[in-house]
């Protein structure tokens, strides 16, 4: 496992493929050698007040890396400072978004950055207890994190008396069991509390009533990993590494029809073309058809839009999609868009928790219709119905899962309606059969290549 490429990396500096001896680079000593835990030391020794930490993070324009891109400093500032009970901090490593695998690698390669970020975050919001919710399917990352946590505890970076300062932050790890919806922060809270993982109605937001009703802050793994760097390099430098409003670098999980699928760290605002090139370009030098820039929850964008797009929150949002978790799914010309959407809608209808009517019924219905179209049994009016269902789910469900499923359908229909219409009218695919076959062949080759 490695970071396959980077441009001016921050999180993975010294960990990229070119660096020598990455095998022990994740260890505490190596992290400290790279300048790790300096930010925590500084906060503790100089007694920097939490408000200043939060102000610094705000200034850096660090935005949530889990998908929503909410400004981290602002989120932290929502925590009530006069609350007299326990407050909690939770790290969200329930990375379930199809196409996203950055948190996994981050935990494997630089777990101490996450730990340091969590401790600093806990200090900033006044929490003594932090939980780390780790996706069930990445046991090796979880084991790595636990080992790193032991190291950090032994070194005095975590525990009841951090670096002799009296600061107390305990971190506990909880493993998820694979439900996508548990990545939604309130479903995660329910799951952590030992209940069925389904999202809560909001408001109240976790900052007001979270884990067991106490004020709680939940951030993504990559967000926490960025925090020490924000503080050690300074907010201005971190901001400058990206672009205004989109501070710093971002890990992109590039997958799909690409030569070198993997994680890449590039500054926010990097042109998509550059990222594509970094990842070796579209497989077998075929033409790019489309790309889902932020995981399946983001709307798909056609090649011509993508090739003129800068990879940052605001630019992608303006283009009608979102940066999301940075899971870039590349689709080449061999792709049948109906088939692709069928896979995506299948995912959402399976992962819907089933709690609220629009999502439970709507995701299932959308999938049934898309599947029918894909099977050549489309009917006139199906596309209008699909659009209508997507509209009717959007904004009416308890959590964003419904919105995500709806955005996926809307994106495909917006940019590739013709292909869907062809399927409905002719009962067959617009992409010639032999082109699709070539796609299958390429997939087999890459499968073989990746099998050890």
């Amino acid at each position, binding site marked *: 496992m490695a970071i396959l490429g980077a441009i001016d990396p921050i999180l993975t500096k010294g960990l990229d493929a070119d660096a020598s001896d990455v095998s022990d680079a994740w260890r505490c000593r190596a992290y400290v050698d790279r300048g790790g835990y300096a930010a925590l030391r500084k906060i503790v020794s100089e007694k920097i007040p939490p408000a200043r930490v939060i102000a610094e993070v705000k200034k850096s324009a660090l935005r949530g890396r889990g998908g929503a891109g909410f400004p981290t400093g602002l989120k932290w500032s929502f925590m009530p400072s006069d609350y007299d009970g326990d407050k909690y901090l939770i790290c969200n490593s329930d990375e379930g978004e199809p196409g996203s695998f950055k948190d996994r690698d981050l935990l494997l390669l630089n777990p101490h950055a996450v730990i340091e970020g969590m401790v600093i975050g806990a200090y900033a919001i006044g929490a003594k207890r932090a939980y780390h919710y780790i996706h069930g399917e990445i046991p090796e990352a979880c084991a790595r994190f636990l080992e790193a946590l032991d190291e950090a505890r032994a070194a005095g970076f975590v525990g009841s008396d951090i670096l002799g300062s009296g600061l107390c932050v305990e971190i506990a790890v909880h493993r998820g069991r694979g439900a996508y919806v548990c990545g939604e922060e309130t479903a995660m809270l329910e799951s952590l509390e030992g209940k*069925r993982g389904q999202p809560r*109605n909001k408001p109240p937001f976790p900052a007001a009533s979270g884990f067991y009703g106490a004020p709680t802050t939940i951030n993504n793994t990559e967000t926490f990993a960025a925090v020490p760097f924000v503080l050690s390099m300074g907010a201005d430098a971190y901001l400058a590494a990206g672009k205004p409003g989109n501070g710093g670098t971002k890990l992109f999980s590039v997958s799909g029809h690409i030569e070198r699928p993997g994680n890449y760290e590039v500054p926010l605002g990097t042109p998509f073309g550059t990222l594509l090139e970094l990842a070796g370009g579209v497989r077998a030098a075929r033409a790019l058809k489309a790309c889902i820039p932020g995981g399946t929850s983001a709307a798909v964008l056609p090649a011509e839009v993508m090739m003129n797009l800068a990879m940052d929150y605001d630019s992608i949002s303006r283009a009608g999609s979102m940066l999301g978790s940075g899971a870039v799914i590349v689709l080449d010309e061999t792709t049948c868009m109906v088939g692709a959407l069928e896979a995506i809608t299948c995912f959402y209808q*399976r992962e819907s*928790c089933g709690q609220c009517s629009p999502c439970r019924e709507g995701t299932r*219905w959308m999938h049934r219709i898309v599947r029918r179209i894909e099977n050549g049994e489309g009917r006139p009016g199906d596309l209008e119905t699909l659009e209508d269902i997507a509209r*009717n789910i959007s904004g*009416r469900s308890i959590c964003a899962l419904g919105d995500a499923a709806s955005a996926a359908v809307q994106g495909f229909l917006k940019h590739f309606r013709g292909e869907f219409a062809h399927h409905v009218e002719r009962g067959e695919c617009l992409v010639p059969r032999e082109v699709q076959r070539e796609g299958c062949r390429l997939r087999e080759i890459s499968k073989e290549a990746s099998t050890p």
Partner: protein
Amino acid sequence: MTNTVSIEIDGKKILAKEGATLIDAARDAGISIPHFCYHKKLSVAANCRMCLVEVEKMPKPVPACATRVADGMKVFLHSELVLGAQKAILEFLLINHPLDCPVCDQGGECRLQDLSMRYGGTRSRTREAKRVVSPKDIGPLVSMREMSRCIHCTRCVRFCREIAGLAELGVVGRGGDSEIAAFAGRSVDSELSGNLIDVCPVGALTSKPFRFRARAWELCRRPSISPHDSFGTNVALDVKDERVVRVLPRENEEINECWLSDRDRFSYEGLNSPDRLKKPLIRIDGALREVEWNSALDYAAHALKSLVEAHGADALASLASPSATLEEIHLLQKLTRALGSGNVDFRPRRRDFSTDGHRSGIPWLGMRIAEIAELDAALVVGSFPRKDNPLFALRLRQLAKKAGRVSMLSLADDDPRIDLAARVAVRPSELPAALEAILRAFARSHGEKEPGSRVLSDTTAPYAETDAIRAIAESFAGAKKSAIFLGAGAEHSPTAGRIHAIAGAFARASGARLGFIGDAANGVGGYVAGALPTGLNAYEMFAQPRKVYLLHGVEPELDCHNPAQSLFALRHADLVVAVTPFVGETTLEYADVVLPAAPFSETSGSFVNTEGRVQSFEGACRPLGESRPAWKIFCALGRLLGLPGFDYASSAAVRDEILVSTAFEGREGVGEIGRVGRVGWVEGLDNALDEAFAPREAHPAAAGALERVSDVPIHFSDAIVRRAAALRETKDAAAPEARMHPTTLEDLKISDGERVRIRQASGSSGAFGASGASGETTLTARSDTSLPEGCVRVAAAHPSTAALGDMFGTLTVERA
């Protein structure tokens, strides 16, 4: 005083309580917002999304059930956004919901049907196959056959968890495969399970006994009062062809809120049981034969008169069921006294009558029902709350939820499904001493001198002051509003008077209120009706057999403290006149005249519940066959006997006479029941005992003797309930077993599941001298860690244990 805020709904200004949800605020202003998952008594789920409304400055529609009002909020219920959302949600809900309303049991009273008509579209766009959900069996009362109709609102799940106190239902599966289910292979055994039918907004959960028996529009809904427990639950009787075919709750926040116990809901089947007597019977040549009313009444009057003349009035004893109406109990005692006898009572399950003549007033709950949940601390003594009175248990559950402390001193550690602060289970003979230990622990920790009143210093061995005893005492420390409740086990105990006195002393010491939960609809009403004995009480009248018995609504072989003794006396009496709606096999044996009386559903009358509330009701349907309201039967008998004062034009006239004489504080037409009759409160309720009270001597059980612990199983508590077919199929109606602590079983060298012979002296025991007769029955022994050692739990009120004696006597157990 809560503050109010001003909001605007569709341009109309309304005032709302601060912190209220939009849906509540709108409802209070008379504006209804369509919804499925919202229920005012359940937590907010906001999952159906039917109540989405538009709020100014909010980008998305918000659920009215989960959105709190804010001053100046502008809400739109009929904007394009809202109408579109409602239509869309209904479309979603109908994708997988069968569109076969004409064959659905819920059709005509279905929320989904109603809201679809009002807010939904007219055509279905779905072409996909509908989801099919496999039927489930969760017991004899609630049907889960049509689970494909479920819309996943989770009201049932929340009801089980939040109201019934145990999560017996849950959601399994995910997404479109979500299903409501019980634990695999288990039934839903809550005594409140019938409410699931009411909370289900569609036809997924339906009533097994009622389903497909009638359509909503064929039914006449008539208000009534349930006769099965001491609360006087407000019910609506659905009548079809002069038969009650369904019972639903009538909302009354002060009594039952919107709930019903299963006993109240499904007992109606007993009203239509084959045991219902349609014509009077008299014994002719040894066999009971149907006769005309005139003959029966003439015969009864003549026999009564001649036997009383021959043997003296003291040879006559009368016993009324405490679930008979106020008017009936009153007329029975009036008739008995007019014939010269003071042997009249209405408390068949009582054993200790030592407080008679020493009470300052009528024993009652000590507070209003609605006040229970507002207490800070409560101690329940000698009760199986869930089975004795499910709605009382529900109030305790609310109390425990509001951070009040509930503790129990009971005869078995049954799970009350209440979060208890502390609990102690003791043998029946230890109950007074354990209660006293609590009192002493409390007094000492409050720096008071040991309460050394004469009531307390008795011969029973002191009960060790365990941690649990101290925890109970401690739970009353600092409580502003607290209460000690005496349950059926305390009232039926042979040491009821002593328990009453100690509980009273504890209440005085701790500032708590003392209350009786009560075990019957007219437990208070019987006192109001003046049916207290001036001669022999309900126990003595059988312990010292009489020549003539007049029974009303009771089946002594099941309803009395000592069934064997009662049955013996009845079998040997010269004349037994039974006024009853039912004629069971045993009644046929001993009765000489059986007069078919109308049950509560077919007569007018009143119940005075345990909080002293008088609730009058009308008959909901015509009496079955030739049965007649019992008040009319007693009037007719009185007139035939030539007794004065039996010329009443109506039951209301009887009631008015009683209530005036007991200083009734009546208000015309107040309360929920207003239209039907008058609601008021009786005066003279007081649980205090006077100075002269001396408790009945306890009869210490011989060392090593096994003590019987009796409960009245919930579905056998009165003549109507025990004839309700579906209730008899429930787990609660399982045949009694001889339950013992494993250690006790071991001492007896009996293993779990073995058949055992139970022997118990059936003659009167203790103070009145044993008659030497003994009864026996064979039961299955069962290991039960919830019981204290040295006890055998053998239920009362069941035919299989009717041969035994006192509910709380001693008994022997041997391998059968």
